[in-house]
């Protein structure tokens, strides 16, 4: 069953960056594909494309501000199988290396190689070009259970 999910209002970056995809033959009714974004309490975001089952993962603006200037990003290997909550690498800034965690379970499809030469991208565009990895989800329900934008904002303010 295909369920339609609207892109969350708070993610204006995503809304302008993503245009609805053309209808495919397989979809017999409205079939417009939406990509939605959810967040974790560890300040990561996942942008999930329900069509391809791929979630793009990164750290939030809140996280990159707290870290300071990023000098190094350690990423998982392509093809690695990860479970939700597994440590999948780290972001290093000013002598502090913060572990990053898999927000959802699945297989690492692709990692952002640009970060090897330009770790600062994580500061400049943490919710855009500074994405960390793309995961093929093994369990999309894990994505649904993450925080939506409002809940994440409340979490940040409550800390």
């Amino acid at each position, binding site marked *: 069953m295909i369920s339609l999910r609207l892109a969350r209002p708070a993610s204006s970056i995503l809304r302008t960056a993503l245009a609805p995809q053309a209808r495919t033959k397989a979809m017999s009714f409205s079939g417009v594909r939406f990509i939605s974004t959810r967040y974790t309490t560890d300040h990561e975001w996942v942008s999930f494309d329900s069509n391809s089952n791929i979630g793009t993962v990164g750290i939030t603006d809140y996280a990159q501000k707290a870290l300071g200037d990023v000098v190094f990003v350690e990423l998982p290997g392509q093809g690695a199988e990860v479970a939700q909550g597994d440590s999948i690498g780290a972001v290093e800034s000013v002598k*502090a290396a913060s572990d990053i965690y898999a927000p959802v379970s699945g297989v690492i499809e692709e990692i952002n190689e640009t970060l090897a030469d330009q770790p600062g991208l994580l500061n400049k565009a943490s919710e855009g070009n500074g994405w960390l990895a793309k995961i093929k989800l093994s369990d999309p329900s894990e994505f649904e259970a993450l925080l939506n934008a409002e809940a994440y904002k409340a979490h940040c303010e409550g800390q």
Partner: protein
Amino acid sequence: MVSKSFTRLLNPSTFRQVSLSSSSCATPSSSLPPLRYHIFREPLPYPVGLKLQNDIIDVRLKAKKDDPAGSRGKGDVVLMLEHTPTYTTGRRDNSPNPNELHPEEKKVQNVGANFYITKRGGQVTYHGPGQLVGYPILDLNVMETPTRCYVEYLQAMLAEYARDDLGVQGVLAPHPEGHVGVFSSPTEKFASIGIHLSHRITSHGFAMNITPQPIKWFDLVMACGLADVKATSLHQLIPPSSKGGLPSVRDVAESLIPKFGDLFSRGIIPLSQDLQEEGAEVNQIYELVQKAEDDATIVNGKQGGWPDEPDLSKRE
């Protein structure tokens, strides 16, 4: 006791203006329980210290999960210790080739120290007797302290201690070119910082050379990735006119303890104090610390102690 803000008026610190990002750091007022500290009685082999930190973090993460509200700040501890001679590096140096030695490791084969790759930030450094190592294990989320502010606070605390308490001249923190740490000139460093964060709980921490004993070991490697910088120690920097004389590693540890409290606006008490009134988390941490003390004694005993100086005769 003079309040922190009053001291700042008298002695405007240049160390707290550090801002590698746009917003500055301000210590929030705190209603959290006191920090707890422990000063180890003998130098710990590095793996003993590492295991202890990881075990404490596991205990804390579980306590946080079981009772997020009740556990707030309870398990925040500061461990002060020395290590037996050891070289370490951070996670940037996670060599993809297990058959190749790290280039710095090659330099110190067979000198009498092991070489470990850790999960902290920062690059190659040395730990050993004569150097005070501090491992604050703090929940930065609960303390509402961004990571970069935590690093700045540690750096400022060590710099201010050297300058104001000991009279060291020319203290620079950070280095004029932005390198994190505490320097006595653009080419001499006496304190380093390297942190690991797991779900925003800190481990590893800082290391400050008190006596000149670590220097010969430092001279064998390019520490911190800084080719032009040499290690120095407080004893080499304290002016002869200073009335306090030369503090021991333990003296420095004891002097820094109250400053941790000031830094985070919290009380600071010995780990062992009032244990019977505390819950499982603090008691478990206490047990882990006691075990680490015992393990250190056992391992050091088995290895017949540790060398005072590097053995340069067997290097390749």
